[in-house]
């Protein structure tokens, strides 16, 4: 016993040199993590920098106001795609937002095993590749009606929206201090009253921006639209006909051999990213501050 203590004492008596080596090694590895961070952030700046640099130059009013030009000609715009995307987002929102919000509230209000099951399946739904959702809508909607349609595209986007809206709602509702809820319940308010008159109003701003962010993210989805909305070179706002969408335009124009198309693809990418980043930053500012200080 005593000998082991003795020996451990000996090994503990490190020479300064050894300590220095360990410190150097530590510093070396930590420097590597800095390098990794620089690579990650550098990749972002590389992607964004390029898009901004090239894309902003190709942005002009024509991009928003004009429809596509004849193949290979200059001067077309993305109007059809932008309007188509907006229409489909509207359809998607009418499905995705109510289900998402109610599902998120359910996560707060209910208890027991089923809550956990629902959360698990929401995660599963969130992880399903968007192309598979598109395939599903293709089978269920496009197949029987023999018609690509704006409705089918909107439906696919709506399903994609549900998990995100639900997660956001739940997270923001959890930020509302419990004291508010307890006070309301203590005054004899019913659970419905407590939610509708106390908790939801307190969380309103956060939920709204969170939902806008979910919508913006869904706006960039391309794969589920390929065989549901399908795209349309002509201007159309009919819900039962194929419709154009901004991400579909970006896809076809980026892979097109014509420089004028490539330019438009860049402009479209700038619009899409601008929208998403603006809403991300907005979400950050509206949700981050509200309750943290009160806690």
């Amino acid at each position, binding site marked *: 016993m005593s000998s082991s203590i003795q020996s451990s004492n000996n090994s503990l008596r490190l020479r300064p040199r050894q300590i220095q080596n360990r*410190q150097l090694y530590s510093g070396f590895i930590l420097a590597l*993590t800095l390098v*990794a961070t620089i690579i*990650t952030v550098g990749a*972002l700046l590389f*992607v964004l920098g390029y898009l901004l640099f090239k894309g902003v130059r190709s942005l002009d009013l024509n991009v928003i106001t004009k429809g596509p030009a004849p193949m290979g000609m200059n001067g077309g715009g993305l109007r059809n795609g932008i309007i188509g995307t907006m229409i489909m987002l509207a359809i998607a929102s009418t499905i995705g937002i109510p289900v998402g919000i*109610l599902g998120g509230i359910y996560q707060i209000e209910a208890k027991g095993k089923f809550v956990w099951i629902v959360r698990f399946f929401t995660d599963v739904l969130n992880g399903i590749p968007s192309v598979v959702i598109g395939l599903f809508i293709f089978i269920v909607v496009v197949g029987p009606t023999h018609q690509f349609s704006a409705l089918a595209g909107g439906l696919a986007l709506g399903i994609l929206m549900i998990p995100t809206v639900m997660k956001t709602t739940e997270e923001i509702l959890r930020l509302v201090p*419990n004291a508010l809820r307890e006070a309301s319940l203590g005054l004899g308010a*019913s659970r419905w009253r407590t939610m509708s008159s106390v908790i939801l109003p307190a969380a309103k701003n956060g939920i709204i921006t969170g939902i806008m962010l979910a919508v913006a993210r869904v706006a960039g989805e391309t794969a589920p639209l390929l065989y549901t909305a399908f795209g349309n070179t002509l201007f159309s706002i009919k819900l039962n006909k194929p419709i154009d969408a901004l991400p579909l335009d970006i896809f076809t124009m980026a892979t097109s051999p014509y420089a004028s198309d490539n330019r438009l693809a860049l402009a479209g990418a700038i619009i899409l990213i601008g929208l998403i980043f603006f809403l991300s930053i907005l979400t950050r500012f509206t949700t981050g501050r509200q309750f943290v200080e009160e806690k």
Partner: protein
Amino acid sequence: MSLSSPSLPNKTGSGGFSPVTAVKKSSLRDRTFSRTLDKVYIGILFAASLTILAIVFGLLLQLAYSSRDTIHVFGFNFFTKDEWNPNTDVYAARPFIMATLYSSLIALLISVPISLGTAIFLSELCPKWLRTPLSFLVELLAAVPSVVYGLWAIFIMIPFVVKYIETPISTASMKIPVLHVGPHAHIELLHRRIFLGDLPIFDKAANGTDMLAAGLILAIMITPYITAVSRDILRAIPRSVREGSYALGSTKWEAIKLVVLPFARAGITGGVILGLGRALGETMAVTMVCGNGMGPFKWDLFNQCSTMASVIANDLGDASGLHISALIEIGLVLFLVTMIVNAGARLLIFFTAKDIQGGGK
């Protein structure tokens, strides 16, 4: 199961929430009304949650039902054969399944070290004023739509990769010494030139849209996910754990390696698997850069390939009959694989979070 989260501290059992005597004036009818209203309210919430379950199960059943033809005709051969030929109506998905796994593996190999390094830096080293903007930047990177990554890859990444990586490799040669026994029993040492382009993983005719490009763009796309999850896990580990390690005389890296990382291992693995799930199902960016070759699978990094997702995206438009059924079966496989992968990841993250909470208290 003890998994059902005890998240709500105020136990308001059904009907037990109204403090009894405080509301003298309110009539009994009012209270029963609000009680029914509450039941309706919970019912609606429940219905919304059921919708989510219905969608997941509906999806699974519909995909399985719609692919019954190919399941019936090809059976297990669908996963083991190499031929995909719409002209002769023979379909086997092995090339696409392998390409999906291969490209995701490449992506993970590149992405995991970088993501882990970034996560460690962000959670352990980064000065406070820099932490929030950097984390936010990483989150933004995760929000960029896949089609935009594809566009960037086409215009920037592929030309760069062709010029500085693929062409040098395919044209480079190595001299390796070979022992040669000559006709006159002289032992000579010859040098034999090996063209790297002859190796099975580098094709000579590289044109940029290939497996390597798919792997690279996937790596760029999943890095933010893995970083974000790993950072969250690392941040959740209590300070006291690190301080204990410092007090025993460890350096910063030793504390991370010996104490922090073992704590976070399962959760970080979960994050990596989550990234894998993303990579497996990623469609647009991969479709734009992978070359969409339909031949048998090769390990060749410069081979034009198709992943499961990209073959669905490319072929569904002009498919009919058995072809559609085959594509749907690919979708079904993709669904099942990503579901299993994601479920595994979520469970790992969930249990790590639980462990950390338990250990911290």
